[in-house]
């Protein structure tokens, strides 16, 4: 068996905010701590084989975008490492960020912010290849044109500025820009979330077609369960920085195992099932500044037992084959394990 294209090995990412001088003074006077550490991603272990699209799903603030930025090299992990093709991604000399690579390209959420408003579209797409010496100017121009056609636009659009395009078209341009670098891995961060539903479908169709043609490997980050089901092979559900369930898309949609996944699916309105009410998850997502002890989901979990309050569940393979879940329910019950026993 060959090594997976992407391995995320026990990656954690914390953001520590340095308190300012005045804040520190106030903190000393009031006797409270200043600053704080946000645990954005904790101990995530994932592997993506060549050609797979892995969905990463969760509520806003669950760390899915941070994970995407760690994979694309914008953030360096606080712990753990990102491995591409068996090679750990190198850090720069400060260790503050990773050595960025052309092999991973990102597609951002908001196509109105992700394109330089003062740069012609053709230049935006061709800039990376030109800087990295992917060909002569003429070759790159030609390739820019064919990329634009590949994403369903016209080659002549290369001379236009981004504001002359609609949101869906801009997202196509962003996809063309990413593809121009001939990446091995795409990171799509909520790539369709800011588009109208009808445009979403078009861009998703484009992505599915491109995937078939080019054999793309991708990390598809989204909060939209129906979108994820449409494009992903496997899905990782994240809650408060941790992966709580990892399963094939169809398995997961048929029978979610983790109570959080269940709750997530229960809150999706569906047509035709005759279900008239949804059951939103009780309570708020806890602050990543102070994650609850034990299972992060226990304050909101209807099935939480005493064990959940103290012991962090590990991602394990339960009874049914190729899926993993981090829940004590699937690991011998939620009763506190008696230490004496």
């Amino acid at each position, binding site marked *: 068996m060959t090594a997976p294209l992407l391995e995320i090995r026990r990656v954690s990412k914390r953001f520590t905010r340095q308190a300012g001088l005045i804040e520190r003074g106030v903190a000393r006077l009031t006797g409270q701590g200043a600053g704080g550490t946000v645990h954005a991603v904790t101990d995530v272990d994932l592997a993506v084989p060549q050609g797979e699209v892995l969905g990463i799903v969760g509520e806003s603030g669950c760390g899915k975008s941070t994970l995407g930025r760690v994979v*694309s*090299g*914008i953030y360096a992990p606080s712990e753990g490492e990102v491995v591409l093709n068996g090679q750990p991604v190198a850090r720069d000399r400060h260790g503050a960020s990773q050595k*960025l*690579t*052309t092999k*991973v*390209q*990102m597609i*951002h*959420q*908001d196509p109105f*912010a*992700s*394109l*330089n*408003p*003062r*740069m012609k579209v053709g230049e935006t797409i061709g*800039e*990376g290849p030109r*800087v990295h010496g992917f060909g002569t100017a003429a070759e790159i121009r030609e390739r820019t044109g064919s990329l634009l056609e590949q994403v*369903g*636009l016209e080659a002549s*659009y290369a*001379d*236009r*500025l981004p*504001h*002359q*395009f*609609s949101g*869906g*078209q801009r997202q196509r341009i*962003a996809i063309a*820009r990413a593809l121009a*670098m001939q990446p091995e891995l795409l990171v799509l961060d909520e790539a369709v979330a800011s588009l109208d539903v009808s445009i979403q*479908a*078009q861009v998703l*169709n*484009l992505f*599915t*077609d491109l995937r078939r043609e080019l054999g793309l490997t991708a990390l598809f980050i989204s909060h939209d369960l129906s979108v994820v089901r449409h494009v992903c092979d496997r899905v990782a559900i994240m809650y408060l920085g941790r992966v709580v369930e990892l399963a094939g898309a169809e398995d997961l949609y048929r029978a979610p195992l983790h109570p959080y996944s269940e709750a997530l699916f229960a809150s999706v309105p569906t047509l035709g099932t005759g279900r008239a009410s949804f059951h939103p998850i009780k309570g708020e997502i806890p602050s990543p500044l102070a994650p609850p002890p034990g299972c992060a989901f226990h304050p909101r979990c209807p099935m939480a037992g005493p064990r959940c309050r103290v012991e962090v569940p590990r991602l394990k393979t339960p009874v049914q084959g190729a899926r993993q879940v981090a829940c004590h329910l699937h690991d011998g019950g939620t009763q506190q394990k008696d230490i004496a026993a």
Partner: protein
Amino acid sequence: MSDTIAADSETLAVPSAAPRETRAVRLRNFWADYRRSWVAVASLIVIALLIAASFGAPLLAPQDPYDMAALDWMDAFLRPGTVGSGGYMHLLGTDNAGRDMLSAIFYGLRTSFVIGLTAGVLALSIGIVVGLAAAYFRGRTEAVLMRVVDLQLSMPAILLALVMVAMLGQGVAQIIFALVVAQYAYFARTTHGAATVERGKDYIEAARSTPLPTHRVLLRHLLPNVMPPLIVVATVQIASAIALEATLSFLGVGLPLTEPSLGSLISNGFKYIHTDRYWLSIYPGLFLMITVVAINLVGDQVRTILDPRNAR
């Protein structure tokens, strides 16, 4: 699925009415907006005339005020409109050395423009470097650079310029240096503010993660998007550089009278302000005022156009 794609490429077609925004079109739109204010148009014409008069001074002016041999003591203090020994009319009179005021003003304007523009462009370049570096690299770089800028902005520019000139001595290069030191902070602050906003946008992150070299991200992505507010500040600062130079010369630390600038002309005439020889200081003062006001009015109009709230 493929028919969905086929259908959408039709709906996605750009309406043919949308003009292709080339540089020429943008310039034409800008001019159309600019033309809406006749005051701004008039100011632009005034500036153009003043620049033409100053740089064409050797051709236009009846006398070369630098040429001491051309000056005649007999022509001193001639009233405006008198015909002097040179056989031509002194439209704005002459000064205590028999210098033709109109010629002196044209030559003086030239000095003022050269100093104002050079200092403005240099201060703009330095301010951009400082502001962009601070906004892009953040952390310690930002703290150090911007505190220095803040410190400088808390002092009046004229004070700083005075100290610089006192240290460096008189001369055009020294004045320009003093003005750059006094003024770069305004550009740095404006650049920093605009660049901090732009830096947080996804297109910068996209450029960084491509990855593109840092200088490219700064110059090709960040800089073009912070230019609009800088253009406005630049016009205002050029006007203020001209005024600042005039102030320095008026205070006697700027340029000597043998290299007339508007400030030294006003200063020279100021000695006679209590006599009836009003023309010695009034006319250079008038030209200075017109220049500064016209540049500021142009800057105002440019700001109005570039203000996104006024976008059409």
